[in-house]
C-alpha cells in the first residue's frame, strides 16, 4: 500500500515539488534516481535504450492507426484502392452510428452490463478477499484454487448451458444476464487482486481498530477500504476491462434488446454487405471507453498488473 503511494508520488514527482519539503525531497531524490537510471542505461545500451519501447509502441499503434484511417474513408474509397490517409475525409460513418438507435443502443447496453458487473464483482469480492487475506478456514486453499479455475475455464465450454440457464430463469436478453455471467471470471480475478492488496496492510491496523471499539463493518468501510482504495480502483479497472472485451458469452446471452456493441458489429458485417467504414468507426468507438479508463488508472497500472504483491 505504502509502496503504491510511493509509486504514484514518483510518477507525479514534479507536481509534488511544492506540496511540502519532505515530499519535495522525495520527489527530488526520485528524479535523481531517474537520471541515474537513464545514465546507467544510456551507457550500457549505447544511448539507444529508448528505441525498444518506441518501436514496440509504434508496432502497437499501427493497426489502430489503420482502423482510424479506415473509419474516415467512404466504403467506396476503401474498396477502391490503397492510401495511407483518407483522400475524401468523411465523418459519415460516425454520424450514422450516433443517429442510428441500433448502433448507439449497442453502446448503451454494453456499458450497462459492464458497469453492473463491475459493481457486483467488487462488492462481493471485498469481504471474500478480506477473509482470504486474514483468516484460515476449512478448505480455504481449495476454495481459492477452485475460484481461480473458473477464471481459467474456456467460455466456449459454457456458452450453450449458459444460454439454457439464463433462459430458464428468465433473464435472457437483459443486461443482467451478461453481467451475472461475466461474474464467472471477474469475481475470481477481483478476489485474487484484492487479496494481494489486502495482504499488504499490516494486521495491527485491524487489531487496533477492534480495541478502539469499531465493529467489523464500520472498521471495514471507514478504515480498511480507504487504505486499499488504489487496490479497489485497480480491481474495478480489471473487471471493467475483462467484461468489456469479452464477447462470446455476451453474444450468446443476448438477442435484440441487450445486444452489445461488438455483436451489433458482427451482425452489420454480415447483413448489410461489407461496410468497412462503418465497421471501422464502430471499432474506434469501442476503444475509446478503454482508453479513458486507462487514463484514470495510469499511475496504478504497473502495480495493478502485479496483482498488488510484488
Amino acid at each position, binding site marked *: 500500500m505504502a509502496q503504491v503511494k510511493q509509486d504514484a508520488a514518483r510518477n507525479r514527482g514534479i507536481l509534488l515539488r511544492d506540496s511540502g519539503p519532505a515530499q519535495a525531497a522525495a520527489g527530488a531524490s526520485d528524479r535523481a534516481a531517474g537520471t541515474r537510471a537513464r545514465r546507467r542505461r544510456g551507457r550500457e545500451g549505447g544511448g539507444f535504450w529508448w528505441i525498444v519501447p518506441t518501436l514496440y509502441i509504434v508496432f502497437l499503434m499501427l493497426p489502430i492507426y489503420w482502423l482510424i484511417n479506415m473509419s474516415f474513408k467512404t466504403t467506396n474509397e476503401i474498396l477502391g484502392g490503397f492510401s495511407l490517409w483518407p483522400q475524401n475525409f468523411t465523418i459519415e460513418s460516425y454520424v450514422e452510428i450516433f443517429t442510428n438507435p441500433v448502433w448507439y443502443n449497442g453502446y448503451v447496453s454494453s456499458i450497462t452490463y459492464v458497469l453492473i458487473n463491475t459493481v457486483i464483482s467488487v462488492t462481493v469480492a471485498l469481504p471474500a478477499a478480506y477473509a482470504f487475506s486474514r483468516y484460515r478456514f*476449512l*478448505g480455504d*486453499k*481449495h476454495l481459492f484454487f477452485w475460484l481461480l479455475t473458473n477464471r481459467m475455464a474456456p467460455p466456449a465450454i459454457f456458452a450453450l448451458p449458459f444460454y*439454457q*440457464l439464463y*433462459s*430458464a*430463469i428468465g433473464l435472457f436478453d437483459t443486461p443482467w444476464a451478461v453481467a451475472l455471467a461475466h461474474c464467472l471470471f471477474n469475481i475470481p480475478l477481483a478476489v485474487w487482486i484484492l487479496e494481494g492488496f489486502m495482504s499488504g496492510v499490516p494486521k495491527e491496523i485491524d487489531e487496533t481498530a477492534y480495541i478502539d471499539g469499531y465493529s467489523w463493518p464500520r472498521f471495514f468501510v471507514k478504515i480498511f477500504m480507504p487504505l486499499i482504495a488504489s487496490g479497489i480502483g485497480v480491481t474495478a479497472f480489471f473487471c471493467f476491462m475483462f467484461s468489456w472485451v469479452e464477447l462470446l458469452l455476451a453474444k450468446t446471452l443476448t438477442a435484440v434488446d441487450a445486444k452489445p456493441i461488438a455483436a451489433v458489429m458482427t451482425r452489420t458485417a454480415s447483413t448489410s454487405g461489407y461496410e468497412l467504414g462503418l465497421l471501422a468507426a464502430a471499432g474506434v468507438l469501442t476503444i475509446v471507453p478503454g482508453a479513458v479508463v486507462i487514463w484514470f488508472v495510469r499511475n496504478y497500472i504497473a502495480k495493478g498488473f502485479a496483482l498488488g504483491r510484488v
Partner: protein
Amino acid sequence: MDLTWMAWTWQTATFFAVIAFLLLGMMLWEYVAPGGGARVGILRFETTRGDRLFISLLMSAYIHLGWLAFSDASLWGATIASLAFAAAVFRWV
C-alpha cells in the same frame, strides 16, 4: 423450476452425488480429526487430505480417458485402476 434443459440421467446424477458425498465425507473427517493431515510426501511438497483427494479425482479422470483411448476392455478396469491409484496417493503423496 423446470430443469429438463439440464438433461439429467440417473448415471450422471449418481456421479455427482458420489462427488458430493466425498466432499461431505472430507468435511466430517476434518471435523473428527482437524488439521487436514498435512505432510510432505513423495511429490516433495506439503499436501493435505483435500489435495490428495483432488489429485486422485483428477488422475482417475485421466486414467478413464486413457483407458477409453487405448483399450477396448470394459471401463470398470479403469475404475479399479483409479481406486488403486487413489489408495496409493492417500498412502504416499
